[in-house]
Protein backbone atom coordinates (compact mmCIF):
# COMPACT_ATOMS: atom_id res chain seq x y z
CA UNK A 1 0.00 0.00 0.00
CA UNK A 2 2.77 2.36 0.94
CA UNK A 3 4.49 1.55 -2.29
CA UNK A 4 1.38 2.28 -4.29
CA UNK A 5 0.92 5.59 -2.53
CA UNK A 6 4.46 6.65 -3.15
CA UNK A 7 4.20 5.71 -6.76
CA UNK A 8 0.95 7.58 -7.08
CA UNK A 9 2.35 10.73 -5.59
CA UNK A 10 5.28 10.40 -7.96
CA UNK A 11 3.10 10.20 -11.03
CA UNK A 12 1.00 12.95 -9.56
CA UNK A 13 4.11 15.08 -9.32
CA UNK A 14 4.99 14.34 -12.95
CA UNK A 15 1.52 15.36 -14.03
CA UNK A 16 1.71 18.58 -12.02
CA UNK A 17 5.12 19.32 -13.49
CA UNK A 18 3.86 18.72 -17.00
CA UNK A 19 0.93 21.03 -16.42
CA UNK A 20 3.22 23.71 -15.04
CA UNK A 21 5.45 23.46 -18.09
CA UNK A 22 2.46 23.68 -20.40
CA UNK A 23 1.10 26.70 -18.55
CA UNK A 24 4.54 28.20 -18.68
CA UNK A 25 4.76 27.98 -22.43
CA UNK A 26 1.28 29.41 -22.83
CA UNK A 27 2.07 32.30 -20.51
CA UNK A 28 5.34 32.85 -22.27
CA UNK A 29 3.54 33.18 -25.57
CA UNK A 30 0.97 35.48 -24.02
CA UNK A 31 3.65 37.69 -22.47
CA UNK A 32 5.38 38.05 -25.76
CA UNK A 33 2.19 39.16 -27.41
CA UNK A 34 1.41 41.77 -24.82
CA UNK A 35 4.99 42.99 -25.02
CA UNK A 36 4.66 43.69 -28.70
CA UNK A 37 1.24 45.23 -28.14
CA UNK A 38 2.68 47.96 -25.96
CA UNK A 39 5.03 49.14 -28.66
CA UNK A 40 2.14 49.82 -30.98
CA UNK A 41 2.65 53.00 -32.89
CA UNK A 42 1.28 52.36 -36.34
CA UNK A 43 -0.33 49.63 -38.39
CA UNK A 44 -1.84 46.58 -36.80
CA UNK A 45 -3.99 43.73 -37.98
CA UNK A 46 -3.16 40.91 -40.30
CA UNK A 47 -2.14 40.42 -43.89
CA UNK A 48 -2.56 36.90 -45.26
CA UNK A 49 -0.29 35.97 -48.14
CA UNK A 50 -0.78 32.66 -49.95
CA UNK A 51 1.02 31.30 -52.95
CA UNK A 52 4.27 30.33 -54.60
CA UNK A 53 6.92 28.45 -52.65
CA UNK A 54 9.53 30.27 -54.73
CA UNK A 55 8.27 33.67 -53.63
CA UNK A 56 7.95 32.60 -49.99
CA UNK A 57 11.56 33.18 -48.80
CA UNK A 58 11.61 36.64 -50.38
CA UNK A 59 8.19 37.49 -48.98
CA UNK A 60 9.34 36.39 -45.51
CA UNK A 61 12.38 38.64 -45.68
CA UNK A 62 10.28 41.56 -46.86
CA UNK A 63 7.81 40.95 -44.06
CA UNK A 64 10.61 40.83 -41.47
CA UNK A 65 11.93 44.15 -42.74
CA UNK A 66 8.47 45.71 -42.84
CA UNK A 67 7.80 44.49 -39.31
CA UNK A 68 10.71 46.55 -38.06
CA UNK A 69 8.62 49.63 -38.88
CA UNK A 70 5.27 48.12 -37.97
CA UNK A 71 5.93 45.52 -35.31
CA UNK A 72 2.26 44.96 -34.63
CA UNK A 73 1.21 44.02 -38.14
CA UNK A 74 0.98 40.27 -38.55
CA UNK A 75 2.02 39.07 -41.97
CA UNK A 76 1.28 35.36 -42.46
CA UNK A 77 2.89 33.67 -45.42
CA UNK A 78 1.66 30.33 -46.65
CA UNK A 79 3.78 28.63 -49.31
CA UNK A 80 1.44 26.33 -51.20
CA UNK A 81 2.07 26.98 -54.88
CA UNK A 82 1.47 29.59 -57.55
CA UNK A 83 -1.79 28.21 -58.87
CA UNK A 84 -3.22 27.99 -55.38
CA UNK A 85 -2.06 31.55 -54.70
CA UNK A 86 -3.88 32.93 -57.73
CA UNK A 87 -6.95 30.92 -56.83
CA UNK A 88 -7.15 31.91 -53.20
CA UNK A 89 -6.81 35.63 -53.84
CA UNK A 90 -9.60 35.27 -56.36
CA UNK A 91 -11.71 33.39 -53.75
CA UNK A 92 -10.98 36.07 -51.20
CA UNK A 93 -9.40 33.59 -48.76
CA UNK A 94 -6.24 35.71 -48.59
CA UNK A 95 -5.22 39.35 -49.01
CA UNK A 96 -2.33 38.81 -51.38
CA UNK A 97 -1.74 35.92 -53.72
CA UNK A 98 1.75 35.28 -55.02
CA UNK A 99 2.86 33.58 -58.22
CA UNK A 100 6.27 32.81 -59.65
CA UNK A 101 5.06 32.86 -63.25
CA UNK A 102 3.05 35.08 -65.55
CA UNK A 103 -0.71 34.68 -65.28
CA UNK A 104 -2.39 32.26 -67.64
CA UNK A 105 -4.95 33.63 -70.06
CA UNK A 106 -7.81 32.11 -68.04
CA UNK A 107 -6.53 33.72 -64.85
CA UNK A 108 -6.10 37.07 -66.55
CA UNK A 109 -9.82 37.25 -67.13
CA UNK A 110 -10.50 37.23 -63.36
CA UNK A 111 -9.63 40.92 -63.03
CA UNK A 112 -6.85 40.65 -60.47
CA UNK A 113 -4.43 43.50 -59.89
CA UNK A 114 -0.87 42.41 -60.69
CA UNK A 115 2.18 43.85 -58.96
CA UNK A 116 5.54 42.62 -60.22
CA UNK A 117 7.73 42.73 -57.10
CA UNK A 118 10.89 41.18 -58.52
CA UNK A 119 12.35 39.18 -61.34
CA UNK A 120 13.97 35.81 -60.73
CA UNK A 121 16.06 33.60 -62.92
CA UNK A 122 15.64 29.88 -63.16
CA UNK A 123 18.98 28.16 -62.86
CA UNK A 124 19.71 24.78 -64.39
CA UNK A 125 21.67 22.91 -61.75
CA UNK A 126 23.89 19.83 -61.81
CA UNK A 127 25.88 17.92 -59.22
CA UNK A 128 29.27 19.48 -58.37
CA UNK A 129 30.96 16.22 -59.39
CA UNK A 130 29.53 16.49 -62.90
CA UNK A 131 32.11 17.50 -65.48
CA UNK A 132 29.54 19.00 -67.81
CA UNK A 133 28.84 22.63 -67.04
CA UNK A 134 28.21 24.32 -70.38
CA UNK A 135 24.94 23.56 -72.06
CA UNK A 136 23.29 24.98 -75.15
CA UNK A 137 19.63 25.79 -75.23
CA UNK A 138 19.01 22.72 -77.39
CA UNK A 139 20.94 20.49 -74.98
CA UNK A 140 18.64 21.49 -72.15
CA UNK A 141 15.64 20.87 -74.37
CA UNK A 142 16.95 17.45 -75.38
CA UNK A 143 17.83 16.46 -71.82
CA UNK A 144 14.45 17.39 -70.45
CA UNK A 145 12.52 15.73 -73.28
CA UNK A 146 14.59 12.59 -72.85
CA UNK A 147 16.22 12.72 -76.27
CA UNK A 148 19.62 12.77 -74.62
CA UNK A 149 19.71 10.41 -71.67
CA UNK A 150 23.38 9.85 -71.02
CA UNK A 151 26.01 12.34 -69.90
CA UNK A 152 28.58 10.89 -72.31
CA UNK A 153 26.63 12.44 -75.22
CA UNK A 154 27.47 15.81 -73.72
CA UNK A 155 31.09 15.04 -73.03
CA UNK A 156 30.59 13.77 -69.52
CA UNK A 157 30.87 10.36 -67.91
CA UNK A 158 28.97 7.33 -69.14
CA UNK A 159 26.07 7.72 -66.75
CA UNK A 160 22.34 7.81 -67.25
CA UNK A 161 20.91 11.29 -66.73
CA UNK A 162 18.41 11.60 -63.89
CA UNK A 163 16.02 14.42 -64.75
CA UNK A 164 14.59 16.15 -61.70
CA UNK A 165 11.42 18.11 -62.40
CA UNK A 166 8.66 19.71 -60.36
CA UNK A 167 5.05 18.75 -59.75
CA UNK A 168 2.34 19.74 -62.20
CA UNK A 169 1.07 23.22 -61.33
CA UNK A 170 4.33 24.54 -59.95
CA UNK A 171 5.05 28.09 -61.11
CA UNK A 172 8.73 27.34 -61.60
CA UNK A 173 7.87 24.36 -63.78
CA UNK A 174 5.30 26.36 -65.74
CA UNK A 175 7.75 29.19 -66.39
CA UNK A 176 10.61 26.83 -67.23
CA UNK A 177 8.53 24.86 -69.71
CA UNK A 178 7.25 28.00 -71.33
CA UNK A 179 10.65 29.68 -71.63
CA UNK A 180 12.52 26.57 -72.76
CA UNK A 181 9.80 25.59 -75.25
CA UNK A 182 9.23 22.37 -73.32
CA UNK A 183 5.58 22.36 -74.24
CA UNK A 184 3.55 22.09 -77.37
CA UNK A 185 0.05 23.07 -78.34
CA UNK A 186 -2.35 20.25 -79.06
CA UNK A 187 -5.60 21.85 -80.06
CA UNK A 188 -6.53 24.12 -77.16
CA UNK A 189 -4.35 22.24 -74.69
CA UNK A 190 -0.73 22.85 -73.83
CA UNK A 191 1.10 19.58 -73.40
CA UNK A 192 4.25 19.29 -71.34
CA UNK A 193 7.15 17.58 -73.11
CA UNK A 194 9.18 16.79 -70.00
CA UNK A 195 10.31 13.16 -70.05
CA UNK A 196 7.89 10.79 -68.32
CA UNK A 197 10.34 9.15 -66.00
CA UNK A 198 11.55 12.39 -64.46
CA UNK A 199 11.92 12.36 -60.69
CA UNK A 200 9.29 14.69 -59.29
CA UNK A 201 10.53 16.75 -56.36
CA UNK A 202 8.13 18.86 -54.34
CA UNK A 203 9.61 22.31 -53.84
CA UNK A 204 12.81 24.10 -54.86
CA UNK A 205 14.68 22.68 -51.89
CA UNK A 206 13.79 19.11 -52.82
CA UNK A 207 15.21 19.71 -56.31
CA UNK A 208 18.35 21.08 -54.70
CA UNK A 209 18.62 18.16 -52.29
CA UNK A 210 18.11 15.58 -55.04
CA UNK A 211 20.64 17.10 -57.39
CA UNK A 212 23.10 17.56 -54.53
CA UNK A 213 22.72 13.91 -53.60
CA UNK A 214 22.91 12.27 -57.01
CA UNK A 215 25.93 12.64 -59.25
CA UNK A 216 24.06 12.18 -62.50
CA UNK A 217 21.07 14.39 -61.76
CA UNK A 218 20.02 17.62 -63.43
CA UNK A 219 17.27 19.97 -62.30
CA UNK A 220 16.05 23.54 -62.41
CA UNK A 221 15.17 25.90 -59.59
CA UNK A 222 14.75 29.49 -58.49
CA UNK A 223 18.08 31.27 -58.94
CA UNK A 224 17.67 33.14 -55.67
CA UNK A 225 17.58 29.86 -53.73
CA UNK A 226 20.55 28.09 -55.30
CA UNK A 227 23.10 27.02 -52.70
CA UNK A 228 26.40 26.87 -54.56
CA UNK A 229 28.09 24.87 -51.84
CA UNK A 230 25.83 21.96 -52.74
CA UNK A 231 25.19 22.19 -56.47
CA UNK A 232 26.67 23.74 -59.60
CA UNK A 233 24.85 26.13 -61.92
CA UNK A 234 25.06 25.18 -65.58
CA UNK A 235 25.90 27.93 -68.08
CA UNK A 236 23.32 28.28 -70.79
CA UNK A 237 24.75 29.21 -74.21
CA UNK A 238 27.96 30.09 -72.39
CA UNK A 239 26.24 32.57 -70.07
CA UNK A 240 26.28 32.12 -66.32
CA UNK A 241 23.01 32.48 -64.46
CA UNK A 242 23.59 35.66 -62.46
CA UNK A 243 21.58 38.71 -61.57
CA UNK A 244 23.61 40.90 -63.95
CA UNK A 245 23.22 38.54 -66.87
CA UNK A 246 19.47 38.49 -66.40
CA UNK A 247 19.34 42.28 -66.20
CA UNK A 248 21.29 42.60 -69.45
CA UNK A 249 19.09 39.86 -70.87
CA UNK A 250 21.93 37.57 -71.92
CA UNK A 251 20.67 34.77 -69.65
CA UNK A 252 17.46 33.57 -71.21
CA UNK A 253 15.46 31.99 -68.36
CA UNK A 254 13.80 34.58 -66.11
CA UNK A 255 10.29 35.06 -64.85
CA UNK A 256 8.43 37.61 -62.73
CA UNK A 257 7.41 37.27 -59.10
CA UNK A 258 3.86 38.53 -58.84
CA UNK A 259 1.77 39.74 -55.96
CA UNK A 260 -1.90 39.76 -56.75
CA UNK A 261 -4.76 41.56 -55.11
CA UNK A 262 -8.43 41.66 -55.85
CA UNK A 263 -10.53 44.81 -55.70
CA UNK A 264 -9.54 47.63 -53.37
CA UNK A 265 -6.72 46.41 -51.06
CA UNK A 266 -6.94 47.06 -47.32
CA UNK A 267 -4.83 49.82 -45.82
CA UNK A 268 -2.36 47.27 -44.44
CA UNK A 269 -2.04 45.36 -47.70
CA UNK A 270 -1.49 48.57 -49.62
CA UNK A 271 1.14 49.76 -47.16
CA UNK A 272 3.00 46.47 -47.50
CA UNK A 273 2.91 46.53 -51.30
CA UNK A 274 4.08 50.16 -51.31
CA UNK A 275 6.91 49.20 -49.02
CA UNK A 276 8.01 46.40 -51.35
CA UNK A 277 8.15 48.75 -54.30
CA UNK A 278 9.95 51.45 -52.32
CA UNK A 279 13.75 51.74 -52.41
CA UNK A 280 13.99 50.04 -49.03
CA UNK A 281 11.93 47.08 -50.16
CA UNK A 282 13.76 46.72 -53.42
CA UNK A 283 17.05 46.71 -51.51
CA UNK A 284 15.85 43.57 -49.76
CA UNK A 285 14.89 42.15 -53.16
CA UNK A 286 18.31 42.96 -54.59
CA UNK A 287 20.06 40.68 -52.09
CA UNK A 288 19.13 37.53 -54.00
CA UNK A 289 16.77 38.59 -56.76
CA UNK A 290 16.43 41.21 -59.46
CA UNK A 291 14.72 44.45 -58.44
CA UNK A 292 12.07 45.84 -60.73
CA UNK A 293 13.00 49.51 -60.86
Amino acid at each position, binding site marked *: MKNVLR*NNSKTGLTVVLLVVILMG*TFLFAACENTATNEETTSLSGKVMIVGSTSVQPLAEELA*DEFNKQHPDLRIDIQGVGSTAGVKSVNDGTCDIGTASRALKSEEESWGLTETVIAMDGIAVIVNPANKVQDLQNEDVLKIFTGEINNWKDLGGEDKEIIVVSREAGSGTRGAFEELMKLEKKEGDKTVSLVVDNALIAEG*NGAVLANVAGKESAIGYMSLGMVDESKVKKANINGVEATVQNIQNQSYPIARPFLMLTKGEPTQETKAFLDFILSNEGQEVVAKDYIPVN
Partner: protein
Amino acid sequence: MKQRRIKEIIQKSFIWLCTFITVAALAWIVIYIIANGFEHLNLDFIFSEYKGGKNGILPMILSTVYVAFLSVIIATPIGIGAALYLVEYAKPGKLLYLVRFATETLAGIPSIIYGLFGFIFFVTILKFSFSLLSGALTLSIMVLPTVIRTTEEALKCVPVSYREGSLALGATKFQTIRGVVLPSAIPGILTAVILSIGRIVGETAAVYLTAGMVTRFPDSIMDSGRTLSVHLYVLAKEGISFEEAFATATILIITVALINLATNKAAGRLKRRYEP
Protein backbone atom coordinates in the same frame (compact mmCIF):
# COMPACT_ATOMS: atom_id res chain seq x y z
CA MET B 1 16.64 -37.34 -35.89
CA LYS B 2 19.75 -35.51 -37.00
CA GLN B 3 17.90 -33.96 -39.89
CA ARG B 4 15.27 -32.72 -37.50
CA ARG B 5 17.93 -31.16 -35.31
CA ILE B 6 19.42 -29.31 -38.26
CA LYS B 7 16.00 -28.09 -39.30
CA GLU B 8 15.35 -26.86 -35.78
CA ILE B 9 18.64 -25.03 -35.68
CA ILE B 10 17.86 -23.33 -38.97
CA GLN B 11 14.40 -22.36 -37.80
CA LYS B 12 15.70 -21.05 -34.53
CA SER B 13 18.41 -19.00 -36.16
CA PHE B 14 15.82 -17.59 -38.55
CA ILE B 15 13.70 -16.45 -35.61
CA TRP B 16 16.74 -14.91 -33.96
CA LEU B 17 17.72 -13.24 -37.21
CA CYS B 18 14.27 -11.68 -37.64
CA THR B 19 14.26 -10.38 -34.10
CA PHE B 20 17.70 -9.01 -34.68
CA ILE B 21 16.49 -7.22 -37.84
CA THR B 22 13.63 -5.62 -35.95
CA VAL B 23 15.81 -4.43 -33.11
CA ALA B 24 18.64 -3.39 -35.40
CA ALA B 25 16.31 -1.34 -37.62
CA LEU B 26 15.02 0.49 -34.57
CA ALA B 27 18.45 1.05 -33.11
CA TRP B 28 19.80 2.25 -36.45
CA ILE B 29 17.05 4.81 -36.99
CA VAL B 30 17.01 6.15 -33.45
CA ILE B 31 20.76 6.24 -32.92
CA TYR B 32 21.49 7.70 -36.35
CA ILE B 33 19.02 10.51 -35.90
CA ILE B 34 19.87 11.32 -32.30
CA ALA B 35 23.61 11.16 -32.96
CA ASN B 36 23.26 13.64 -35.80
CA GLY B 37 20.69 15.80 -34.08
CA PHE B 38 22.27 16.12 -30.70
CA GLU B 39 25.07 18.48 -31.64
CA HIS B 40 22.64 20.99 -33.07
CA LEU B 41 20.31 20.68 -30.13
CA ASN B 42 20.69 23.58 -27.73
CA LEU B 43 18.52 25.93 -25.74
CA ASP B 44 18.87 28.63 -28.36
CA PHE B 45 17.46 26.31 -31.00
CA ILE B 46 14.56 25.21 -28.84
CA PHE B 47 13.65 28.57 -27.36
CA SER B 48 13.98 31.09 -30.15
CA GLU B 49 11.74 32.24 -32.92
CA TYR B 50 12.04 31.13 -36.51
CA LYS B 51 13.43 34.24 -38.07
CA GLY B 52 16.40 36.51 -38.45
CA GLY B 53 18.98 33.76 -38.86
CA LYS B 54 17.97 32.08 -35.62
CA ASN B 55 15.91 29.22 -36.88
CA GLY B 56 14.48 28.25 -33.53
CA ILE B 57 11.55 25.91 -33.19
CA LEU B 58 9.65 27.45 -30.30
CA PRO B 59 6.74 28.57 -32.53
CA MET B 60 6.43 25.00 -33.86
CA ILE B 61 6.49 23.56 -30.35
CA LEU B 62 3.76 25.98 -29.32
CA SER B 63 1.63 25.24 -32.37
CA THR B 64 2.00 21.54 -31.66
CA VAL B 65 0.95 22.05 -28.05
CA TYR B 66 -2.05 24.18 -29.08
CA VAL B 67 -3.22 21.70 -31.70
CA ALA B 68 -2.77 18.71 -29.39
CA PHE B 69 -4.52 20.48 -26.51
CA LEU B 70 -7.47 21.58 -28.64
CA SER B 71 -7.93 18.20 -30.31
CA VAL B 72 -7.83 16.39 -26.99
CA ILE B 73 -10.35 18.81 -25.49
CA ILE B 74 -12.70 18.14 -28.38
CA ALA B 75 -12.15 14.42 -28.82
CA THR B 76 -11.95 13.21 -25.21
CA PRO B 77 -15.48 14.04 -23.97
CA ILE B 78 -17.05 12.70 -27.14
CA GLY B 79 -14.89 9.62 -27.10
CA ILE B 80 -15.62 8.89 -23.43
CA GLY B 81 -19.34 9.40 -24.02
CA ALA B 82 -19.32 7.04 -26.96
CA ALA B 83 -17.36 4.42 -25.05
CA LEU B 84 -19.74 4.69 -22.08
CA TYR B 85 -22.70 4.18 -24.37
CA LEU B 86 -21.11 1.19 -26.06
CA VAL B 87 -20.09 -0.52 -22.82
CA GLU B 88 -22.86 0.45 -20.42
CA TYR B 89 -25.98 0.97 -22.49
CA ALA B 90 -25.85 -0.53 -25.97
CA LYS B 91 -27.51 -3.87 -26.48
CA PRO B 92 -26.04 -6.16 -29.10
CA GLY B 93 -27.67 -5.39 -32.42
CA LYS B 94 -27.64 -3.22 -35.50
CA LEU B 95 -26.78 0.05 -33.73
CA LEU B 96 -23.86 -1.39 -31.83
CA TYR B 97 -22.58 -3.00 -35.00
CA LEU B 98 -22.94 0.29 -36.88
CA VAL B 99 -20.99 2.27 -34.31
CA ARG B 100 -18.32 -0.42 -34.12
CA PHE B 101 -18.02 -0.47 -37.88
CA ALA B 102 -17.78 3.31 -38.01
CA THR B 103 -15.03 3.51 -35.40
CA GLU B 104 -13.08 0.65 -37.00
CA THR B 105 -13.30 2.35 -40.38
CA LEU B 106 -12.38 5.74 -38.97
CA ALA B 107 -9.34 4.11 -37.40
CA GLY B 108 -8.32 2.67 -40.75
CA ILE B 109 -8.72 5.78 -42.88
CA PRO B 110 -5.32 7.09 -43.96
CA SER B 111 -4.36 10.47 -42.61
CA ILE B 112 -4.12 11.99 -46.08
CA ILE B 113 -7.86 11.37 -46.51
CA TYR B 114 -8.47 13.20 -43.24
CA GLY B 115 -6.33 15.97 -44.65
CA LEU B 116 -8.37 16.09 -47.86
CA PHE B 117 -11.59 16.13 -45.89
CA GLY B 118 -10.40 18.79 -43.47
CA PHE B 119 -9.18 20.88 -46.37
CA ILE B 120 -12.53 20.83 -48.17
CA PHE B 121 -14.82 20.85 -45.12
CA PHE B 122 -13.21 22.96 -42.40
CA VAL B 123 -10.86 25.08 -44.49
CA THR B 124 -12.98 25.74 -47.55
CA ILE B 125 -16.67 25.17 -46.78
CA LEU B 126 -16.77 26.34 -43.15
CA LYS B 127 -14.21 29.05 -44.03
CA PHE B 128 -11.98 28.42 -41.01
CA SER B 129 -9.11 28.80 -43.52
CA PHE B 130 -5.70 27.32 -42.71
CA SER B 131 -5.86 27.53 -38.94
CA LEU B 132 -5.10 25.68 -35.75
CA LEU B 133 -8.85 25.22 -35.36
CA SER B 134 -9.22 23.47 -38.73
CA GLY B 135 -6.25 21.29 -37.86
CA ALA B 136 -7.53 20.44 -34.40
CA LEU B 137 -11.04 19.60 -35.61
CA THR B 138 -9.65 17.31 -38.30
CA LEU B 139 -7.30 15.63 -35.85
CA SER B 140 -9.98 15.22 -33.22
CA ILE B 141 -11.99 13.09 -35.64
CA MET B 142 -8.83 11.19 -36.43
CA VAL B 143 -8.05 10.32 -32.81
CA LEU B 144 -11.68 9.64 -31.87
CA PRO B 145 -11.41 5.87 -32.53
CA THR B 146 -8.29 5.69 -30.33
CA VAL B 147 -10.08 7.43 -27.47
CA ILE B 148 -13.21 5.30 -27.85
CA ARG B 149 -11.35 2.00 -28.03
CA THR B 150 -8.94 2.64 -25.21
CA THR B 151 -11.68 4.00 -22.94
CA GLU B 152 -13.84 1.00 -23.75
CA GLU B 153 -11.07 -1.34 -22.66
CA ALA B 154 -10.68 0.61 -19.44
CA LEU B 155 -14.42 0.51 -18.74
CA LYS B 156 -14.53 -3.22 -19.35
CA CYS B 157 -11.79 -3.63 -16.77
CA VAL B 158 -13.95 -2.12 -14.02
CA PRO B 159 -15.27 -5.16 -12.10
CA VAL B 160 -19.01 -5.82 -12.38
CA SER B 161 -19.14 -6.08 -8.59
CA TYR B 162 -18.44 -2.33 -8.32
CA ARG B 163 -21.48 -1.57 -10.44
CA GLU B 164 -23.64 -4.09 -8.60
CA GLY B 165 -22.62 -2.63 -5.27
CA SER B 166 -23.57 0.87 -6.34
CA LEU B 167 -26.87 -0.19 -7.88
CA ALA B 168 -27.73 -2.20 -4.80
CA LEU B 169 -27.27 0.91 -2.67
CA GLY B 170 -30.01 2.54 -4.72
CA ALA B 171 -27.99 4.59 -7.13
CA THR B 172 -29.34 4.96 -10.63
CA LYS B 173 -27.42 3.76 -13.64
CA PHE B 174 -26.05 7.17 -14.50
CA GLN B 175 -25.14 7.87 -10.87
CA THR B 176 -23.27 4.57 -10.85
CA ILE B 177 -21.45 5.50 -14.01
CA ARG B 178 -20.54 8.95 -12.78
CA GLY B 179 -19.67 8.02 -9.24
CA VAL B 180 -18.17 4.56 -9.59
CA VAL B 181 -17.37 3.45 -13.12
CA LEU B 182 -15.77 6.61 -14.48
CA PRO B 183 -13.47 7.30 -11.53
CA SER B 184 -12.24 3.71 -11.61
CA ALA B 185 -11.50 4.02 -15.31
CA ILE B 186 -9.52 7.25 -15.06
CA PRO B 187 -6.08 5.70 -15.62
CA GLY B 188 -7.43 4.07 -18.78
CA ILE B 189 -8.87 7.35 -19.97
CA LEU B 190 -5.54 8.97 -19.25
CA THR B 191 -3.92 6.33 -21.46
CA ALA B 192 -6.38 7.22 -24.21
CA VAL B 193 -5.48 10.89 -23.96
CA ILE B 194 -1.76 10.23 -23.99
CA LEU B 195 -2.06 7.89 -26.97
CA SER B 196 -4.03 10.55 -28.85
CA ILE B 197 -1.41 13.16 -28.09
CA GLY B 198 1.20 10.80 -29.47
CA ARG B 199 -0.72 10.40 -32.70
CA ILE B 200 -1.30 14.13 -33.05
CA VAL B 201 2.33 14.99 -32.46
CA GLY B 202 3.40 12.50 -35.11
CA GLU B 203 0.83 13.47 -37.70
CA THR B 204 1.91 15.31 -40.82
CA ALA B 205 -0.34 14.76 -43.82
CA ALA B 206 -3.61 15.74 -42.13
CA VAL B 207 -2.19 18.82 -40.39
CA TYR B 208 -0.33 20.19 -43.32
CA LEU B 209 -3.45 20.40 -45.47
CA THR B 210 -5.51 21.99 -42.66
CA ALA B 211 -3.37 23.99 -40.23
CA GLY B 212 -1.02 25.35 -42.86
CA MET B 213 2.64 26.04 -42.25
CA VAL B 214 3.17 29.57 -41.02
CA THR B 215 6.27 29.70 -38.86
CA ARG B 216 5.12 32.39 -36.43
CA PHE B 217 3.69 32.30 -32.97
CA PRO B 218 -0.02 31.72 -33.32
CA ASP B 219 -2.00 34.51 -31.64
CA SER B 220 -5.31 32.72 -31.69
CA ILE B 221 -6.79 29.46 -32.81
CA MET B 222 -7.80 31.08 -36.08
CA ASP B 223 -4.14 31.57 -37.00
CA SER B 224 -2.23 29.16 -39.07
CA GLY B 225 0.63 27.36 -37.41
CA ARG B 226 3.22 24.75 -38.24
CA THR B 227 3.55 21.70 -36.02
CA LEU B 228 6.87 20.00 -35.37
CA SER B 229 6.21 17.12 -37.74
CA VAL B 230 5.19 19.45 -40.54
CA HIS B 231 8.29 21.49 -39.82
CA LEU B 232 10.47 18.40 -40.19
CA TYR B 233 8.73 17.58 -43.46
CA VAL B 234 9.30 21.08 -44.83
CA LEU B 235 12.93 21.04 -43.71
CA ALA B 236 13.43 17.66 -45.36
CA LYS B 237 11.70 18.45 -48.62
CA GLU B 238 13.02 21.97 -48.99
CA GLY B 239 16.46 20.77 -47.98
CA ILE B 240 16.92 24.02 -46.04
CA SER B 241 19.08 22.63 -43.32
CA PHE B 242 19.60 18.99 -42.52
CA GLU B 243 21.11 19.87 -39.15
CA GLU B 244 17.87 21.54 -38.12
CA ALA B 245 15.94 18.60 -39.52
CA PHE B 246 17.99 16.14 -37.45
CA ALA B 247 17.55 18.25 -34.34
CA THR B 248 13.79 18.50 -34.91
CA ALA B 249 13.59 14.75 -35.50
CA THR B 250 15.52 14.17 -32.28
CA ILE B 251 13.02 16.27 -30.35
CA LEU B 252 10.16 14.32 -31.92
CA ILE B 253 11.71 11.00 -30.95
CA ILE B 254 12.34 12.16 -27.40
CA THR B 255 8.74 13.36 -27.16
CA VAL B 256 7.47 10.01 -28.38
CA ALA B 257 9.67 8.18 -25.89
CA LEU B 258 8.27 10.34 -23.06
CA ILE B 259 4.73 9.73 -24.27
CA ASN B 260 5.33 5.96 -24.33
CA LEU B 261 6.73 6.13 -20.83
CA ALA B 262 3.66 8.03 -19.65
CA THR B 263 1.32 5.54 -21.35
CA ASN B 264 3.03 2.61 -19.67
CA LYS B 265 2.83 4.36 -16.31
CA ALA B 266 -0.87 5.06 -16.73
CA ALA B 267 -1.56 1.54 -17.92
CA GLY B 268 0.48 0.17 -15.03
CA ARG B 269 -1.67 2.12 -12.58
CA LEU B 270 -4.79 0.67 -14.12
CA LYS B 271 -3.41 -2.81 -13.76
CA ARG B 272 -2.29 -2.31 -10.16
CA ARG B 273 -5.68 -1.08 -9.19
CA TYR B 274 -7.44 -4.33 -10.06
CA GLU B 275 -4.73 -6.76 -9.20
CA PRO B 276 -4.23 -7.46 -5.52
